[in-house]
């Protein structure tokens, strides 16, 4: 039950990240996404280690969000036509359909990985790929990449239990978020 809820959470949040343009909502939804990721990772990992994913995701969100706070961030609201939003929703729907159609077959290739993890993992990877394919904005690109990595980590958690790898993946996530913050900062004119 919890795993199914988590799948729903990660799929819905990743889809919402595609559509919503306000950075405040984006960061909030991004943080929520990691709750789902933590629940799915926890199917194989002890709770303490799975919590690392949640903390790392929230810290990444905080790092990205802090860059947007203040007058510099206000100028970076993204506007989009209703047709663009509709296109994004339809594309996300298509990806979700493909993921739900293919996941049972893919799960057969991945012994040890639960079907809910395959749905969640591939859902995040697919929607993250869609995200980076549709934008050239640093915030969106980094969120897309973090979403893809989160999807991969759900699948990888089932096959790799090494603490070192967990630590290195956490470091990669945090560094990616910091790079994102750096790129957002350099793209913003300093407030006078």
């Amino acid at each position, binding site marked *: 039950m919890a795993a199914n809820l988590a799948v729903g959470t990660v799929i819905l949040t990743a889809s919402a990240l595609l559509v919503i343009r306000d950075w405040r909502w984006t960061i909030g939804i991004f943080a929520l996404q990691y709750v789902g990721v933590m629940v799915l990772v926890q199917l194989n990992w002890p709770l303490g280690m799975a919590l690392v994913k949640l903390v790392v995701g929230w810290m990444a969100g905080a790092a990205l969000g802090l860059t947007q706070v203040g007058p510099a961030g206000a100028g970076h609201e993204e506007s989009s036509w209703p047709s663009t939003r509709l296109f994004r929703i339809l594309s996300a729907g298509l990806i979700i359909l493909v993921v739900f159609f293919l996941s049972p077959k893919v799960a057969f*290739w991945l012994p040890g990985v639960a079907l809910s993890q395959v749905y969640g993992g591939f859902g995040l990877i697919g929607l993250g790929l869609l995200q*980076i394919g549709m934008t*050239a904005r*640093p915030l969106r*690109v980094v969120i897309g*990449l973090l979403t*893809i*990595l989160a999807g*991969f980590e759900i*699948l*990888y958690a089932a*096959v*790799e239990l*090494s*603490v*070192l*790898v967990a*630590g*290195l*993946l956490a*470091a*990669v996530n945090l*560094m*990616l978020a*910091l*790079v994102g913050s*750096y*790129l957002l*900062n*350099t*793209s913003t004119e300093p407030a006078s």
Partner: protein
Amino acid sequence: MNAAVLWLLIPLAMVPLLVLFSMRQRVITVVGCLVTGLLAAAAWQIPIGEVARLGPITLKLEPSLLVLGRSLSFHDHDRPVLLLIYLFAFGWFAGARAARVHPLFIPLGLGMVVFLVAAVAVEPFLYAALFIEMAVLFSIPILSPVGTPPKPGILRYLIFQTLGMPFILFTGWMLTGVEAGSADLTSVIRASVMLGLGFAFLLAVFPFYTWIPLLAEQAHPYLAGFVLSLLPSITLLFGVSFLDNYAWLRTSPDLYVILRITGTMMVITGGAWTLFQRHLGRIMGYAVIVETGFSLLAISLMGVGGLNLFAGLFLPRLLGFAVWSLALAVIRDRVGSLEFTDVKGCTRRMPLAVSCLLLAHLSVAGMPLLASFPLKYSLINSLGAQSASAAFLVLLGSLSLVISAIQVLAVFMENPVRDSNPPQKWPASFLLSAGAAGLLVIGAVPHVFLPWLAGLLKAFEHLLT
């Protein structure tokens, strides 16, 4: 003392210190060169796992450092790789002031080098993908300095390199089953496709190389040269580690055919595209693609001495791109741009920079008497024995690079104009001259350098037997 402390932790500890002093560029250049120079000297002189005497000091470097159940290990056969990496960093840092790059280059460049060295040391070797990704993340502020909005080339570079890591890590898990012999043919094919995709992203293999010319155009040429020389070199070594570790992979004849086709495609397409460029940085970017293609071809010729060619290509490539990048940096600093329309007439204004740029360009193209020639000549000969059409296409790719060098020369000689700027400063002139002399010396006496470069292969014991 532990080898990992010497070659990883000490330089890593230097990174924040250098960042603190980044406003004093002279100081960080000296410290950066000193650290990398000493580490290169240590790799040259101090054996790992044996007692060594350095004057009054007796020292024994322990090979392994345990970290959370895994290890960072340096063996004696890793010393040539360490020497090459730290020597490369030393040379590049020495030219930083002459190239007039931003002050964070040396601290962040050192961080990038440390993570790539960690990629060589980590066991199991599959985790190297994580360290390569960290090195990529360290390189982003190098390529996109403060005050410059991130360009599409940088973002594309970040995306492609980040996408490579999960493929490699997941393949590692899939390969465990394949190596144990418990997998069927479908699993082998699946693992191979995943592995191929992972390296296609990491090495910017055809058709995933669009970010390279973009990056080379949009970033500072010296910094782009640093990243585009170092990163593919370590990734190639990582790729050869896969062949060394997995018997089924290195005994698969299909792999070598795929590598041959991919390498040929990269050389011919990369070479041909240089002919249509109007930006000197983009030309260097396509040359990087050609070089990666040559390395893949060398691996594809493993059965006929290709590995020695693979190792031998490292030095000409690293030196060639160092000279090329520095020359581009000097020209850009003087002219303000690397567009053909802006560099017309540079021959009279900067004869040394232009000559060195062309020398490096021709060396990478494999012209006789220059550093790459003996190796590329042998490579094309060996390739011809296996596939005449592939050898012909590779020759055509190299020829395209030569023609593009002639094109560049023609642009440089157009409309000579008077230049009121002062002449080049001596550090840049000295470094360019030394690099160009190096390209000529390696081309003239390759047999002096090749045995040392063959030492890079000692780490791959299964491939050598």
